[in-house]
């Protein structure tokens, strides 16, 4: 596994507001960087820029690397980044297994079914292949959604407030499930809830004045 590296990222809104200026960080495999800040501080824009889906009206400069490869000019679909958003976006016209197979890359039909079953088993969702997403509970949906992302075999994980829509009593289990599943990947977590941030994570705060140079963070090392 390689580390995810962002160097000299500057984002500027059309009205001239600078969201971040020459931001650099590196996340090692298995490490978590939590990006915290109030709404409008640019957390999600940074994440969108990394995935390559940033609104074209925002001016951006900088580079993003996976190990020694730069992703900056690759189209979204070739960056191999896993993305989780506030909503789970399970596709309503597909069953659970179809949703998972949608994430899965390659393999024969049999192998694919096998992998899907195994991953459902591992998440405590055995036998749910043919259920429709709308019949699942919130926790089940969140897990299926994460499984779908992981089955696509991403090289890094980007999480944008993935727990904020979940019931309070569900959050801790899903958090645990997420950190366990992501234990080998560099992970960037965007949140404004301090409880979301796991103990081993480093934190990058965007709470301070945005025009000031934020403290550049050195390499974030994994806990293992």
């Amino acid at each position, binding site marked *: 596994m390689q580390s995810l590296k962002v160097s000299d990222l500057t984002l500027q809104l059309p009205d001239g507001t600078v969201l971040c200026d020459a931001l650099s960080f590196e996340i090692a495999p298995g490490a978590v960087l939590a990006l915290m800040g109030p709404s409008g501080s640019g957390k999600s824009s940074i994440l969108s820029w990394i995935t390559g889906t940033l609104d074209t009206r925002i001016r951006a400069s900088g580079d993003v690397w996976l190990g020694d490869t730069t992703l900056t000019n690759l*189209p979204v*679909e070739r960056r191999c*980044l*896993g993305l989780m958003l506030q909503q789970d976006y399970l596709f309503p016209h597909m069953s659970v297994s179809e949703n998972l197979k949608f994430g899965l890359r390659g393999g024969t039909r049999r192998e694919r079914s096998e992998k899907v079953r195994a991953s459902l088993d591992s998440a405590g969702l055995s036998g749910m292949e043919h259920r429709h997403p709308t019949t699942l509970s919130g926790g089940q949906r969140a897990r299926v959604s994460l499984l779908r992302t992981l089955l696509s075999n991403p090289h890094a994980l*980007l999480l944008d407030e993935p727990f904020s829509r979940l019931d309070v009593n569900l959050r801790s289990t899903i958090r645990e499930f997420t950190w366990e599943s992501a234990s080998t990947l560099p992970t960037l977590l965007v949140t404004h809830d301090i409880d979301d941030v796991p103990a081993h994570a480093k934190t990058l705060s965007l709470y301070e004045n945005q025009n000031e140079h934020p403290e550049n963070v050195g390499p974030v090392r994994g806990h293992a």
Partner: protein
Amino acid sequence: MTRLLGCVIAVLFSLPLLVGLAGSVVPAIGLLPELAPGNGFARLFDDPRFQPSVLLSLKTGLLATALTLLITLLTLVCAHGTRLWRWLMAFLPPLLAVPHAAMAVGLVFLISPSGWLVRLVTPGITGLERPPLAWVVPDSGGWSLILGLVVKEVPFLLLAAAAQLSTINVESSLRIGRTLGYSPSRCWSRLILPQLYARIRLTLLIILVFNVSVVDMAILLGPGNPPTFAVFLLSLVNEPGLRAAASAGALLLAAGAITLIVLVLIIEKLIATLAAYRRESGHRGKALGTLRRVGQVVVASLLMLSVSAMLMLLLWSVARRWRFPNALPTQWTAENWLSRSDLVLNPLLCTLSFALFVVVFATGSAIAWLESERAGKMPRLDWLWYIPLLIPQVTLLFGWQAMALLLRVDGQWLTVAYAHWVYALPYVVLILAVAWREFDPNWNSAAAVLGAGYWKILFRVRLPLLAKPVAQAAAVALAVSVAQYLPTLLLGAGRHQTLAIELVTSFGGVDRRVIATLAALQSLLPLIAFVAALGIPSLRQSAKQESHAVA
């Protein structure tokens, strides 16, 4: 009171549907020998035009519908999110408002061998001195008609699809799909289109029924010998002794439409199964590249074609002399507009009389209906409004005409206006239903706590807040009325010469410049209405804000 009004509207609306079907069934099976003697089906099957006209209608109707769907989906995939998309969203609504007949006339001026497209490149590129002989318009294969239908129906389907896109999270689906490694085209075909299709299915079926049974555009752009099935039936209905055959044909047409709908639903199931199977493979696909450009070129040319067709109407309407191969008139005149009161002014007034009736009564009754629905006094009857859109117009109108003859109300102004109301009401109700159902009920409560009664809340709160959709629905009502050809023709006994009637009946015979003027006028009425519908509510808004500022 609201329930009573709701009942009256539902009855007034559904009565003609029943009467229309009955009026087609009864003569067809020989139960009305005074009006329709003989065995209609036997007479119909005997006619040498029967088989070729049915085949022609199937060909033009199915191909036009398939192409409409294909181009719409291609446009979504290739143009969504681009600058072209913004152009489409700006230009398509006014083009949607242009009546089919007017668009057909413009297209004839454009694509004929002596039409504008050839003139633009002649003699410069083609080196021709005379128009080419390679094709004629209308052609015997029905391709001009297919083109005309596609040009008119793509905006309809595309706008229906665009309105639905907001309900299926296109951006997030694209984002999730692409980060999972799928190319944008795969994201559309596997994530967005399957969800979208279910939401535009009904619109597609309406288009299908329309395409196989259209009359006005088929008269103008379709082959004449044999004509399409619907036009053939129209030529039978008023011929001595052939009403039974015409009614039998109208029933066949309705049965055919239902069969085609079932067929489409079956094909749809097959494609869905196939798509689900393919989806499981997890192939990521490649970037669109050329296909994307092809799709953009197709829809952009379609847009250019419709805009140029409108330009043709304007140019011919101010031309005095305009011979091949001149790209512009050589002599200009305003005479076509100004000094032809019989040809332009009378049809205009006649058209407006129906249009204003429909604007007032269709909008009024739609609001009354939705109010009764909102109060829980009437159930939602959305399926009811779709019925006249899913039964071929020919089928219903032959029945209405038979009944009108029996009741001796044919040719009456009110009979025709009633039919216009029936055809406009579904659109108005369905447009306003969205606004009414999404309306935040807290506004009502807020007003009620301040002591306002029902009528005060309706007129001072709900209607002003919903002024924009109401104005748009009224404009649609006007557009529907202005475009009505068959109801005006069959129920009006030729006495109500609206622009649509003048345009279609005189197309073959009357001076092209006058035809262009009529068509331009027929297009301008709904366009003006749409501009007004967009402008008036916001004007009022800004006027209020200004007066505030002054105060």
